[in-house]
């Protein structure tokens, strides 16, 4: 693939181009310690394993049905920590604010951050605020970093995913991306689609408490959606993942919007969902555990890992045929008609 002349929005969309950018520009310079390219890192201090993660948040509009950039910034980092099998504990919080930003909105976002941290049981322990000239930021950006302690029972690593594993998700897909898109474009779809933005730390905690190292890998399908997550894991573990379209939970309204806009719901971002790969023998137990909690009540077993050796994701359609699920490529753009 040729090197880009300029960075386009597609480089930030979480698909192949994002991977390529990181692999070519940053990894060769920075990855000296054999770290993996996960959303969070696990570092050890003696016997204690600590998960460490950082994420910057931009979203337009800043306020959307089901959340805002403040709560999103908390949930995003909390979830990245949880994906390592860790209990999120401390957050840093940094704002980059565009000159002229309404103080009342900032106040609301502060309250929203506070409410989300309280709900997630994390504490903001350090922070920063910068104001930049008008035009140098789109309203406001937030960066959060987080620390959490990895559960001693957890052994979470995409490489542990193997044939026979069951693939689960804790709820409906494509909700956040469609909610934000509808809010941004003021699309009237006959009712409000609400973002799924939420912490999944509680579901992860229960899952690991119940199943320990039978939980092989966890990933949150944010940018690039479930399609990106599955392809990443298939690539890292070198396995074929087969999902079943009929088992994918999706709200009819969300499916409808995706249909109209020509978007593949598998590629649309979630912000309160995670995909779990668990040993096939405990699939039902994992499902029951997830469903026992609010953020997992619509959980489903969506597929399984079938074979080792070829990294690929495919989907059984309701017709009994099979289609490929590719790594999403760039920004999601609605089609013409």
């Amino acid at each position, binding site marked *: 693939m040729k090197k880009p002349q300029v960075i*386009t929005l597609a480089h930030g969309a979480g698909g192949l181009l994002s991977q390529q950018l990181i692999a070519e520009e940053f990894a060769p310079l920075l990855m000296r310690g054999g770290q993996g390219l996960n959303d969070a890192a696990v570092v050890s201090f003696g016997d204690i394993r600590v998960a460490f993660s950082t994420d910057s948040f931009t979203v337009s509009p800043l306020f959307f049905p089901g959340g805002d950039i403040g709560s999103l910034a908390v949930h995003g980092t909390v979830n990245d920590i949880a994906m390592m099998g860790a209990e999120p504990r401390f957050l840093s919080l940094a704002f980059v604010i565009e000159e002229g930003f309404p103080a009342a909105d900032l106040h609301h976002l502060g309250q929203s951050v506070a409410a989300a941290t309280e709900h997630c049981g994390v504490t903001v322990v350090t922070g920063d605020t910068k104001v930049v000239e008008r035009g140098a930021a789109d309203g406001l950006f937030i960066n959060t970093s987080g620390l959490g302690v990895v559960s001693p029972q957890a052994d979470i690593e995409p490489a542990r995913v193997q044939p026979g594993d069951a693939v689960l998700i804790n709820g409906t897909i494509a909700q956040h991306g469609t909610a934000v898109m509808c809010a941004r474009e003021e699309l009237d779809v006959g009712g409000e689609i609400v973002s799924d933005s939420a912490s999944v730390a509680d579901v992860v905690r229960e899952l690991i408490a119940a199943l320990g190292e039978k939980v092989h890998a966890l990933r949150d399908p944010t940018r690039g959606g479930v399609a990106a997550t599955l392809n990443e894991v298939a690539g890292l573990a070198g396995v074929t993942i087969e999902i079943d379209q009929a088992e994918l939970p999706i709200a009819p309204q969300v499916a409808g919007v995706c249909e109209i806009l020509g978007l593949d719901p598998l590629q649309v971002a979630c912000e309160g969902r995670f995909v779990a790969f668990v040993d096939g023998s405990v699939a039902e137990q994992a499902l029951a555990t997830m469903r026992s909690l609010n953020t997992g009540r619509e959980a489903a077993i969506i597929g399984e890992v079938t074979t080792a050796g070829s990294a690929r994701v495919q989907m059984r359609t309701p017709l009994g045929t099979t289609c490929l699920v590719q790594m999403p490529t760039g920004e999601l*753009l609605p089609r013409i008609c």
Partner: protein
Amino acid sequence: MRYIDEYQDGDKAREIAAQIAEVVGEPLAFMEVCGTHSHAVARYGLSEMFPEQLRLISGPGCPVCVTPPEVIDAGIELAREGIWLAIFGDMMNVPGSQGSLSEVQAQGGQVRVIYSPMQAVEWAQENPHEQVVFMGVGFETTAPSVAVGISEANELGLKNFTVLVAHRLIPPAMEALVSQPDVRIDGFLCPGHVSAIIGSKPYQPLADRGIPCVIAGFEPVDVLQAVYMLARMCQQGEARVMIQYRRVVRAEGNPIAREKVAEVFEVADCRWRGLGMMPDSGLRLREKYRDFDAEARFALDLQAAPEPPGCECGAVLRGAKRPTDCGLFGTACLPDHPIGPCMVSSEGACAAVYQYEAVRDGNR
């Protein structure tokens, strides 16, 4: 992912597939004209359900794919000159001969994805000191809303809104396709959305030439049903225009939408990517609305620009080649950095095959 369950029903689909197998004897090639059909065929792996003698070939019904490169180039040039450009989403990554609009946007050009032409009109209204150009691309489906946008701009007396008109019409392209010596088409799956506007009558000349036409919906069961209707007509030596997509399409189409289009646009000869110049195959603004013509306002000179070297989109759009026949498919040409337009839009034949069925490559 159940939304329209009835039309994704596995049992029903298998039942129809069995019926298709019964009526197909001789080898048959049906063309799905519309990109949304190509997408559904790939996405649902429908070719797995057809008997070997039956082949579906993709046609020219992907709006960005048939938009000639000089139109993209003109848009790029405008955006580079500081004109604000409003586009439908899948235009963003289409390669022109000097890059794509997403690159221009990254370099600071004002390029905005809109969902309806009225948003472009509003954008112009809110920014009276900027020139806003809307790229009017698409078939009979998008033309009505663009026409409404233009008459609205006219009523508002907007002086900073124009349209780069590149609308194309489907039936003339189909007529040109059946005259090709190297592509045999035994029947047409006609586009559902386009037909909701134009009705079934415009396909009659094709039926008169002996080619059955079925207007089809976009769910897998719709497509299977329509294929069965075509295959049965072939078996019985009949050629009629039939409507499978009855829940949306009426024989008379949507006369009100057609009136809106006729008020603003007139039929004109147009160039298509892959198919070249075809008589009466597109739209241009009527005299009364020429003030809204970006080509005139910015003195654009739309000379035929070259196709990307090595790209077989032209042959793919005519049904003469399959995406996998292109030497660049899946190697140099990927959705991330498409060489030709067919790899861009979710409607594009190359993108559909790459995205969903490259694994079965050779099937189509």
